[in-house]
């Protein structure tokens, strides 16, 4: 990747990488929230408001995109994580913001556990017509959506604390 640094500064490179990571996370959050809403509250016939339309998506359509987005967001996050450890975490430690650091540690743990669940989640949604999978599919989707929301918010808070320009 060194050739990139002939054109942009090191700070710009890592900032761009972080923005891509954040944009992927937004897309993942949106897709998983749609899917979780669809499994938690099935739309009722004749109700056509915004909420009903939000949850009336076809869950199986999202599954491959969600798995790809989770992996891509995770890989980019893992790449940035080494820089975070030196240039973000240490200053936050020096400021004594330990709860912020703890919230971020929990994010990395939960996102990792979620990563391991993706193959089974994919399998459940690829067999969405099988009623025997309904309960597991529903609750696993909800758990992954909650993890995604938590990871997004924890990452957002850390970014607010430290900001851009590593």
């Amino acid at each position, binding site marked *: 990747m060194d050739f990139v640094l002939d054109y942009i500064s090191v700070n710009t490179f890592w900032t761009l990488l972080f923005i891509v990571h954040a944009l992927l996370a937004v897309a993942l959050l949106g897709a998983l929230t749609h899917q979780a809403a*669809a*499994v938690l509250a*099935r739309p009722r016939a004749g109700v056509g408001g915004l909420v009903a339309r939000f949850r009336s998506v*076809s*869950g*199986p359509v999202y599954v491959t995109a969600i798995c790809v987005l989770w992996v891509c967001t995770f890989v980019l996050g*893992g790449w940035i*994580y*080494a*820089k975070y*450890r*030196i240039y973000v*975490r*240490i200053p936050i430690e020096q400021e004594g913001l*330990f*709860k912020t*650091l*703890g*919230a971020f*540690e*929990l994010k*990395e*743990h*939960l996102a*990792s*556990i*979620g*990563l*391991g*669940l*993706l*193959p*089974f*989640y*994919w*399998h*459940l*949604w690829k067999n*969405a*017509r*099988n*009623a*025997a*999978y*309904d*309960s*597991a*599919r529903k*609750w*696993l989707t*909800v*758990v992954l959506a909650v*993890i995604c929301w938590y990871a997004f918010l924890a990452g957002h808070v850390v970014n607010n604390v430290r900001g851009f320009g590593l």
Partner: protein
Amino acid sequence: MSANPETPSTTPAASRFETFALVFGIAFGILYVVCDLAAWPMFTYHPGTDRIDPGYAPARRDEGPAMYWYGWLASSALGASILGALAALLPAKIRGKIPLSLAWMVPIALLPVLLYSLKFYWRW
């Protein structure tokens, strides 16, 4: 998404991939937490110097922090892959008895353990 009423509603014999994916997902989470608590990374990465040490290695003086997260992921993935593959080899009768609900129950059960493992950070 709920089932189409015209589709089968009984549990089919679990396929080998289903068993592998289920056991992999459950084992990955559990092993990840165990590796975290027991300090069992497959390797240690020192981001300040780009050095990689096998297993657990403490931070070196004047070389910045040590990172274990990558090593925990590798250890967990290896262990979960082995357990998943072994489970997939079980007879179909036994494979079908593994509760699917463990996939979402295990992460919830691990949450208090993770919160406890991070108790250092919850100081007031």
